């Protein structure tokens, strides 16, 4: 117990100071500004984007202070965050997940593979980029995108 408190005192605040809010990309989907519940789907990613997303929600970049949360079910979500190229096995589950998110909803494609198939190109097992399977509202380029980019894109939806 005392160890924790000493640690907290020694380390201090690690969170990076926030930049100014980016311009709004889309209207807040729920009609409530400043809050976004995200369901994340890995459609065939190499896990690079996942590492960066976990970084974005970690203590240093702390996306939650801008009102963004990752949730466990599409039924709880306002937005769908898709990483990776869409593989054959994940194409239908991706459509099902989008279907399960209550409207109005936002689809965010994260990483170059999700935007334009990236290095996977026309490989066997690839159906296409996310935009070829479901409509995409926000794009986050990069291979992988940095946590700063991800946080910035999410802030453009929450408006904070």
């Amino acid at each position, binding site marked *: 117990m005392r160890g924790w408190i000493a640690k907290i005192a020694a380390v201090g605040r690690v969170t990076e100071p926030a930049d100014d809010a980016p311009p709004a990309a889309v209207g807040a989907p729920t009609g409530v500004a400043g809050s976004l519940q995200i369901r994340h*789907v890995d459609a065939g990613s190499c896990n690079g984007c996942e590492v960066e997303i976990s970084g974005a929600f970690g203590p240093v970049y702390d996306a939650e202070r801008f009102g963004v949360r990752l949730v466990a*079910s*599409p*039924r709880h979500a306002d937005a769908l965050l898709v990483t990776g190229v869409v593989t054959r096995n994940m194409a*239908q*589950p*991706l459509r*099902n*997940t989008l*279907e*399960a998110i209550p409207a109005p909803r936002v689809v965010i494609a994260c990483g170059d593979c999700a935007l334009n198939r990236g290095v996977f190109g026309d490989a066997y097992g690839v159906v296409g980029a996310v935009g070829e399977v479901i409509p995409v509202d926000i794009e986050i380029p990069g291979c992988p995108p940095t946590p700063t980019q991800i946080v910035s894109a999410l802030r453009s939806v929450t408006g904070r």
Partner: protein
Amino acid sequence: MTLTLDATPDADPVMAHHNAFGAVAAGILTSVLGVAGVGVGLAGMLGPPRSVQIGWLVPLIGVALQLDPLGGFFIALTGAVAVPVGVYAIGYARREHLGAVPLSVLPLFAAAMMLVPAAASVSTFLLAWELMAAASLILVAAQHARPAVRQAAVFYAVMTQLGFVAILLGLMVLSAAGGADRFADLSAVPAGARTAVFVLTLAGFGSKAGLLPLHAWLPRAHPEAPSPVSALMSAAMVNLGIYGIIRIDLQLLGPGPRWWGVTLLVIGAVSAVYGVLQASVATDLKRLLAYSTVENMGLIAVALGAATLLAATGATSAATVAMAAALLLLVGHAAFKCLGFLAAGSVLAATGLCDLDRLGGLARRMPATTILFGVAALGASGLPLGAGFVGEWLLVQSLIHAAPHPSTVVALATPLVLGAVALTTGLGVATMVKAFGIGFLARPRSDAAADAREAPASMLTGMVAPAVACVVLAAAPCVLATPLRRVLAAVPAAAHADLSGMGTVLHLPGLAGSIAPGLIAVFLVIAVLVVLGASRWGSRRRPPPVALPLWACGADDLTARMQYTATSFAEPLQRVFDDVLRPDTDIEVTPLEESHYLVAAVAYRARIGDAVQDLLYTPVIRAVTLCANGIRRAHTGSVHLYLAYGALGVLIVLLVAR
């Protein structure tokens, strides 16, 4: 010869016709007997005591009958169970093709059960008791073509006859010490004999009521007996075990000393907790209901024990409440357990299944049966609006109000027992949620459950009557106030009962505390209506709802195999109570031929036996088998040897008698 050949093709329709007629006749006869029983019982409870002596019926001793409030209460209760069971049996016997023998014994069984509380002498009581035991045995063995039924019947026969022997010895000691055959003529019994009678009759009546450790016949006999018989046995016959304890131990020998109360408390609490634990992990619907009977009889024994202990230590008000709780629990249990077994029988008749792991989805196929079982499950879970609620509330109140007491025994026993009752009720809710949720809701887990069809009208009619009784008991238990007062006055532990406060608002006699089950029901109904209305009003501006498939974690559709099963629902409980239940689980993983790391199939097997039965009964059965094998050696089949035995026997008799 020609005649025989001609007659053969006609034989089947004639048999079927006869069976249909037999079903109607047996059902109506049972119901008529039930109506008569209710009438006679009410007369006994509300009218003056009457007695009849029929000398010619049985040589030497005759048959002595009497009608008093206590007996009348149990006659009316048994009759009230027999009426719906008779109606139900008409449809059930047709669907399940019950034979002529069980159909003709069914009314006899009902009559024998109503004869037991009417007996006025030891000999008549024993006669009626044995008649009831034999009739129930024939009914349990109704479908004796199946080996499981034969096994259960043998088990039941041995246990019920051993119980009878204990009762026989106990009542003979009572009769000899009291110097009379008639209950009314018994004089004061010396202390030693009194103790012996208590121990013997508690063992005998306890085995009939299903109290631990003599409960083992219930979970064996009930799943194998036809459902109307299960309903009669579980809602009426086990009550007579309680009747025996009240009549012989608490009324004729009563008021009992403290240790009688403590004994009943301990046995009752252990039975209740163990019964509900086994019920919570049972996957067979009828086995679950049978263990729930053990639980409820345990609670009733707790109430009787509390009444005895509190009366012996001077807390008469709390004792009265405990006794009233026992009687209300009896009535409530009879109503919801009768309904529960009848609904389980209707599921069995529709699907051929009682295994909860294979049922499910019956709410769409059998809506009426589902609602009726829901009423029974609500009653069994002891929640408000359920038939068992008021009884359990009274029991808890009597235990709470006894607590600040100078006697150490009371001060120690009541909080402990209160904890046991609370644990029992909590686990009971989980059990009934499992039985109803897994068995009737969600999607069917087998083709048989998917093809189920609703029970015929006579079976539904038979189930509606106990359901109405459940609702009345839950909302307006004050209808029982007058009969309860008469019955309580007859029991020494609660002789000075003042139940005048038992109206719409139920005030505890002599204690601070009151409850209004009717008002609770009304408020709940109003609250539900208000919430429904408010949500409809609030949703008037929202966009119209959209129907989408259920979320299946990305897969296209849910399958029945994704659902909870009865086994998985009870798994946490099974894990927590591992030491008591001693489950025998086994996971078998079959790898693929190509690689040890790839799995072809995983098989999970779980068997939860009865730990008490394994620990107590198996050694006894082994010893008996050993003795029987030894004796068999003496029976070689040689006539010469038997003649020698005969000669030896005569010689011994001559020597002894000389």
